[in-house]
């Protein structure tokens, strides 16, 4: 009961990994699968920095033991876009210089994605609520909101 075979899909790719009980989803993403984009900010679920999408829903990956994520589909920041094909949200964050130290940005981008995937035309209130579980210390959030609005407009125009 200290080791488990974990079947999990991450960014569209299936993996079978032997994990220990105490390994968190965050640890497996970073240390086993080499996906360093997901960050650890506090270890206790109070900052949201480690957030990923699990079956489309934003969750704190530091609060999920890896084996509890079995058979789920995980999307991390690496699955959102690439340098050759940036997601509109990523482009918008760059345009607004919304990333300062960058540490909250993967979580913020995933929270934005969860929001815009289900609500293409969010109000300012909805944007605030969608990001309310993620702490940013550098930006004061303002440029992050602007980036999300810009991304939403671009995504609506593309449809």
């Amino acid at each position: 009961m200290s080791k488990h075979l974990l079947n999990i899909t991450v960014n569209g790719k299936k993996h079978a990994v032997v994990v220990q009980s105490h390994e968190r989803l965050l640890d497996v993403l970073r240390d086993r699968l080499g996906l360093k984009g997901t960050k650890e900010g506090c270890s206790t679920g109070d900052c949201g920095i480690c957030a990923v999408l699990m079956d489309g829903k934003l969750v704190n990956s530091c609060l999920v033991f890896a084996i509890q994520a079995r058979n789920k589909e995980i999307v991390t920041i690496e699955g959102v876009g690439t340098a050759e094909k940036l997601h509109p949200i990523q482009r918008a964050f760059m345009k607004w210089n919304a990333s300062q130290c960058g540490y909250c940005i993967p979580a913020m981008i995933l929270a934005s994605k969860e929001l815009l995937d289900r609500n293409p035309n969010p109000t300012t209130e909805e944007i605030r609520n969608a990001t309310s579980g993620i702490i940013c210390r550098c930006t004061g959030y303002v440029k992050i909101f602007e980036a999300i609005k810009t991304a939403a407009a671009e995504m609506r125009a593309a449809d």
Partner: protein
Amino acid sequence: MTNQPKASLQTRQQTLVVGTSAERVDSLDKVLGKPIYTMDIVPENALYVKVVRSTVCHALLKKVHLSRARNHPGVVAVVTAQDIPGINESTALLPDKPLFATDRVRFAGEPIAAIASFDPNIAEEALDLVEIEYEPLPSVFSPIEAMEPDSPKIHPNGNVCKYLKVRKGDVEEGFKQADIIIEGTYKTPFQEPVPLEPEAGFVIPEPDGSVICVGSMQSPYHVQTGIAKILSLRPEQVRVIQAVTGGAFGPKSDEIPVDVLGIAALVAIRTRKPAALAYTREESMIGHTKRHPFVVSLKAGVKRNGKLTAWEAKLVADTGAYASLGPLVVIRACFHATGPYVIPNVKTDAYCVYTNNTMAGSFRGFGGPQSHFAAESHMDEIAKKLGMDPVEFRLINILKPGTRTATNQLVDEGCGLEECITKAVKESGWHEKRLQFKKMNGTKKRGLGIAIMYHGNSLGPEGNDYGTVHMQIDPDGTTRLRTALTEYGTGAPSALLQIAAETMGLPLRYFKLDASDTEYCGDSGPTVASRTITIGGRATQMIAGKLGQKLGEIAAEMLQCSVNEIDVRDGVYQRRSFGKSVGFVDVVANAYAKGTSLKEAGTFTAPKCEYNPETSQGTVYLQYTYGAVTAEVEVDTETGRVQVLKMVTAYDIGKAINPVSLEGQIEGGTIQGLGYALMEEMIHKNGVVMNPNLADYYVPTSLDIPEMKMIIVEYPGALGPFGAKAVGEPPIVLPAPAIVNAIYDAIGVRIDEIPATPDRVLLALRNAGRARGRS
């Protein structure tokens, strides 16, 4: 009465790259989630280190039992002070702090030993196996008490590690001239910086005995000096590379990265393996430096016509168990203790005091927030006593060109304070709203408050002020800039590229910023005090200018004219008289063909600040940033909760190098200031931190931020490139007094201790109600 907008705004030349909201060069990697932070790039075979910390705040260390930890399966090494080849010291300024405690601990959380394993979970488990025998010593937690002669002594030379004073004119005379004298005492808390990336670093031992240190840090050369001392190596044997750093705000500039890398280095040289140390959030909050709590006592004399005649201030700072940069924080606080006003007679005494609390040190603002909280709260109290509007009272006394500060420094033409005030006041709807709010009924009350500031730029009296920049152009035209002035979120190094591009007449896209690596960058002093754009920018102008001159000479030769006939714009070198031109890439190719070096490097050193150390009279900073902030609040009088509805910020920042990055710095600093005003406090109980986590230490969330309106005013400063002034720190200074002044406007109660938590506000309301009931 009001000055006209500066004429120099119109006469300043147009800039092409400086002044544009160019995208930051570090954004792409960050939005892609690339592995660029310290713990993303730890070598495969590294050991992971955990630190044994004291649980008692002041004690003799009788015995530390490490054998069970050493023998725990999977533990590879345990290190203590005995493993230090050089000097057991990790400090920022005074030689008061060891890397590892040996005979004595002075705060709860002080490092004593470290445990290393290939599995960090095993190292963590082994922490539980360490037993420490303490002999407790009497402790002191209040800096005022610590100044008493019979207080427990924390360090051999006494508990006051820095004292300085300002003496201008004669305060006693000043008080005699006053019609009214007003006294008040104001208190500020330990504010925790909360960089989102906790401290981290790893050390790779090289076969030749040297080490490579990679970490989250602000000041690579400070780290180099500190590690060399600990390991008994020459500085050249310690290569320090700043990894991408996820926020800093101060603690990563001083001894803390030396703590982290020093401990990792001891494991690395013992085991000959790479060793990584990452603080947990709890460890970070306990172990790194925070803002100094201050107790500020003020006494002001004023005439009935509103003119201030005298200002007496006593500032007492709690620097915790070790001084860190406390002495320098107190210097800045001392010089700014009056706020930005003309006061003919000033007496300020400032003390930096040890206690057995956790350490205080650098944090954005560096004494400015504490001084201004006190001064600006007090200004409102004075205005109230005079029956004057707070803005009207301030305008009578503010610094203007030609007036003199508390240190008798002449204010030059680069002073936009008045314009900041009048614009902020107008945008906030000051007069109309304050009248309207008085008429509101109900349990929720609104108020509008103001606070103003000045902020001496760069190091001033705090140290030698220099910046070093290296540039080179690759054969393909990539123009690289590197400097030990680091990026950790400010965007300032990206702005240096804009300055270089502007200076050289080239498009920004040709430029690339390289890592801050002591192997390739010369010492540039610490990345603090908002000096990257001011000092680093001047160095950049100098070096880019030289490189640009070289390119111009080559272009001139190619165009067969003198270099004075060349105009360069957007990468095209144009011969003025005949209209012929040649492109940058061709000029570069030509240079390489001829073997002309396209490398330049150099250091810009700011003039020293000259002032009298006894009276602190003279030029203490080379230029000042000015600002005014208003805050509109709603106070729920049944719960004490304060919502900030709107803030207007107006800053004179000399020249905006990158407007959107500038706004980002202002917004971020403003929200940190809002946290300081309403919710942030590291609570110590008998020296132990009660809330070392992000559940009980509250920073503002996205639901807490107000509507923000930013006004930028540009009165060029004497020091910075294109007249740019420091903008990194100022935004955190004013929200607290503006918000507390707004609370006063809303409910008629003065909160003289921040944070103005719901508990404090409700208690103040009830006490005021009871007092009114009695009278």
